């Protein structure tokens, strides 16, 4: 029998493959089981290819505003959907191959197939039985195949898939999930987006920028429900100014399919009904963990609302079985999965990592305008009993923002008045997804307002707004 692995990871997504590399760095004999695509949804059908699409939308947006910058573009700006999608797939393909290379470089075995845990310490791999989403990137070379594998520690990193609402099951033609929304043959002229989380809003923003009539239907009273209410409110205004139609506190009760269109019946919280007609509807009502067919029930691994229950170090209730990433619960973000994977293997190795602190996980949404945040919203901070100091700084007060032609946006900071702890930071506006990390580092190093105030921010940059927002929380902002 082959030598047992120290670590066997089920799932080669961002959680799984990063976890595998960290394990290999720690000298552990490591394998990853993957059934469809290294890099997971993130790299193949999520984070990365959508960023490629949104980049196209961004350039299109600026090209249409060329005049504002003193440029003249002759003729009408147009696009080729096939070429747009092809670029997005190409970006994904390049990174997918890169993960394969990283596995090889780190001497991590990749086992191609469907895994199930037969007992603690043993995993059976059979041929993939899931219909791969097409087009599929080529399978990496040199993978192992079906068989029974021994592993001292098994980490479940199987990710998540789109949540399906009964009666509104995606059909791949008229009712889309993110898979279809990412590779359309033609761009719809009109679109309904169910759900205004990151996925829903990014597609709404992309298709609106590309010219579609877009209606977003959100069950909760706020778009981008996890974001700070003030930030989400500002974003909503911008979306509406761009011509997006937004219905909050509203649910889709029925979808009727036509030949090449859909008719959705929606109902708000006061019982008012209306029907919406559109070419396509995207179901973006969240994701659910892939916990099935892994043998977890038989082993008695505890799950809760479709996710494996873990502690801060990735341990399930069954010794030797761990879980990380989407399958281990929200927030379902690639970087959360990666970090959980690292913590998990470091704990297995006997290092003493701090458990995952979910308050320090940033979130980014790449719609136009961008949204980025970390920590507690103002409302959540108050709910938690903090007396808060809130700082705000608008883009219009920042020189770089004006020069960029992006004078709309806000940087908001929430401090604990008693200790000066940065509880949360929330931003809307140009490039904020690249800014938020400054605050994340500050939170992770546990700075107080004082260190942030004493930090020199380069001029002229958008980051100066981060400084000003902190100063504003203490009544010291300069440019307001």
């Amino acid at each position, binding site marked *: 029998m082959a030598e047992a692995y120290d670590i066997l990871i089920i799932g080669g997504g961002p959680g799984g493959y990063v976890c595998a590399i960290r394990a290999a760095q720690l000298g552990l004999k490591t394998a990853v089981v993957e059934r469809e695509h290294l890099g997971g949804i993130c790299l193949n059908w999520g984070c990365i290819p959508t960023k490629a699409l949104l980049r196209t939308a961004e350039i299109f947006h600026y090209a249409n505003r060329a005049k504002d910058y003193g440029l003249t573009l002759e003729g009408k700006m147009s696009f080729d959907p096939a070429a747009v999608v092809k670029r997005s797939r190409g970006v994904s393909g390049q990174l997918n191959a890169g993960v394969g290379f990283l596995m090889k470089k780190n001497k991590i075995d990749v086992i191609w197939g469907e895994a199930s845990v037969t007992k603690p310490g043993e995993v059976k791999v059979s041929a993939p039985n899931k219909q791969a989403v097409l087009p599929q990137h080529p399978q990496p070379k040199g993978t192992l195949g079906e068989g029974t594998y021994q592993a001292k520690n098994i980490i479940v990193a199987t990710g998540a898939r789109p949540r399906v609402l009964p009666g509104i099951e995606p059909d791949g033609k008229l009712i889309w999930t993110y898979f279809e929304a990412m590779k359309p043959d033609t761009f719809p002229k009109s679109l309904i987006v169910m759900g205004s989380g990151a996925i829903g809003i990014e597609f709404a923003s992309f298709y609106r920028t590309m010219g579609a009539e877009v209606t977003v239907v959100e069950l909760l009273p706020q778009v981008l429900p996890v974001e700070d209410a003030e930030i989400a409110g500002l974003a909503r205004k911008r979306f509406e100014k761009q011509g997006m139609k937004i219905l909050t506190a509203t649910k889709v009760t029925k979808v009727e399919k036509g030949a090449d269109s859909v008719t959705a019946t929606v109902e708000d919280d006061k019982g008012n009904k209306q029907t919406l007609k559109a070419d396509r509807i995207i179901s973006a009502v969240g994701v659910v963990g892939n916990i099935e067919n892994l043998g977890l029930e038989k082993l008695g691994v505890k799950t809760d609302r479709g996710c494996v229950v873990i502690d801060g170090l990735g341990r399930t209730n069954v010794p030797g079985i761990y879980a990380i990433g989407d399958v281990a619960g929200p927030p379902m973000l690639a970087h959360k999965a990666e970090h959980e994977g690292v913590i998990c293997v470091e704990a297995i190795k006997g290092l003493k990592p701090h458990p995952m602190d979910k308050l320090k996980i940033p979130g980014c949404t790449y719609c136009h305008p961008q949204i980025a945040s970390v920590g507690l919203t103002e409302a959540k901070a108050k709910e938690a009993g903090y007396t808060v100091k809130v700082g705000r700084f608008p883009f219009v007060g920042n020189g770089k923002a004006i020069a960029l032609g992006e004078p709309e946006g806000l940087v908001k900071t929430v401090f604990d008045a008693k200790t000066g702890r940065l509880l949360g930071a929330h931003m809307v506006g140009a490039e904020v997804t690249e800014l938020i990390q400054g605050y994340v580092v500050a939170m992770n190093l546990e*700075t107080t307002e004082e260190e942030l105030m004493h930090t020199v921010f380069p001029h002229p940059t958008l980051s100066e707004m981060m400084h000003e927002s902190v100063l504003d929380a203490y009544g010291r902002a300069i440019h307001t």
Partner: protein
Amino acid sequence: MPVNILMPALSPTMEKGNLAKWLKKEGDTIKSGDVLAEIETDKATMEVEAIDEGILARIVVPEGTSDVPVNDLIAIIASEGEDPKAIKAESGKAAPARKQEPAPAPEMPKAEPKAEPKSDAQPAPPAVAAPAAAAPAAPAASHDGDRVFASPLARRVASQAGIDISRVTGSGPHGRIVLADVEAAKSGAPLAAPAAAPAAGKPAPIAPPSDDKIKALFEPGSYEEVPHDNMRKVIARRLTEAKSTIPHFYLTMDCEIDALLKLRAEINAAAPHDKDGKPAYKVSVNDMVIKALALALARVPEANVSWTENAMLKHKHADVGVAVSIPGGLITPVVRQAETKSLSAISNEMKDFAARAKARKLKPEEYQGGSSAVSNLGMFGVKDFAAVINPPHATILAVGAGESRAVVKGGQVVAATVMSCTLSTDHRAVDGALGAELLAAFKRLIEKPMAMLV
């Protein structure tokens, strides 16, 4: 170009030191190689030599200043042709404001030669101006002035809760104290120093009685107050730490040393003499004890260890520390790989160590590390005692006086020279039977000392 003289690092781990003495004064001509000043660290005193030539234009840090951070400007040398007076003024203004904290109040006495625990007080150049009203949190300094690594938030929350941050155990990277550690301390997690019975309500950190409280017990004027030097502070800190964190137990054996004394006399009698008639070596009983302990450690390797939280360090050689009493304290230089060294080599090495220890010229690497130690008070007539383990050692051997005692042999009372030895043992690293095995191996070597020569 004036040359800046910076506080040197005498060892890789040194972060600050005391400026013990200036051997040159302002205006003196400096030649390369001249000794400018003496720097005192935990246990050693080292000299700062000039590399450049010129005139000592300005002494920035006066002698007697404690806890001068490594790389801080301590003096300025004017090169040839430069006017030292001009440099004085100029560099007074440009004196390095390394720290952003406001300078201590101007009326603060310039550099009291006293080591106060809170003295992050780098004596400020007089030119630096007024104290700020609200001083930012000073970097927390532990009782002995070592830097405490803690996040700003952890510091602030600790100070709000009245917790001495230096006593919180850090769980962050490299032991950095983070908020979670302070929160844990707030909710009752043990602090680093021994805590008394938990008080009702929130556990206040237990500190030893204040200096003033102790002084109040004595008539004013009935004592002389001698401030602690660094060595005293280090001894206090390390031994408090050792005695309160290491679970000690003690094993005593009596060793007959008549054979050893005889062998020693023979060895010394056989020493070749140089042309002045001085013998090449003079082996002491203590040298033979060092060798015997080293060989015993080599024979019982399980006891030749150091405890760490995560693992046992099993040493490949027996590095034996030897407590050397010096004026004002003691220091424990380490005889490396003592199991491989001849008695004469050990003897000569110890003589060198003792001489340099008394002059406080030992280098840190000469007194750090080791897996066991010898502490010998036999020369004072002490019959038997128990020593405090000096971490990272797992054991320490306390050696009493060799004295003529009545022993029973074959049913007869006879006289023998007996030396009582007590092994203090860290129970985390060495259990009772193992400690006994080590001590028995030692006793065999001491009683049959020829075995040490083969």
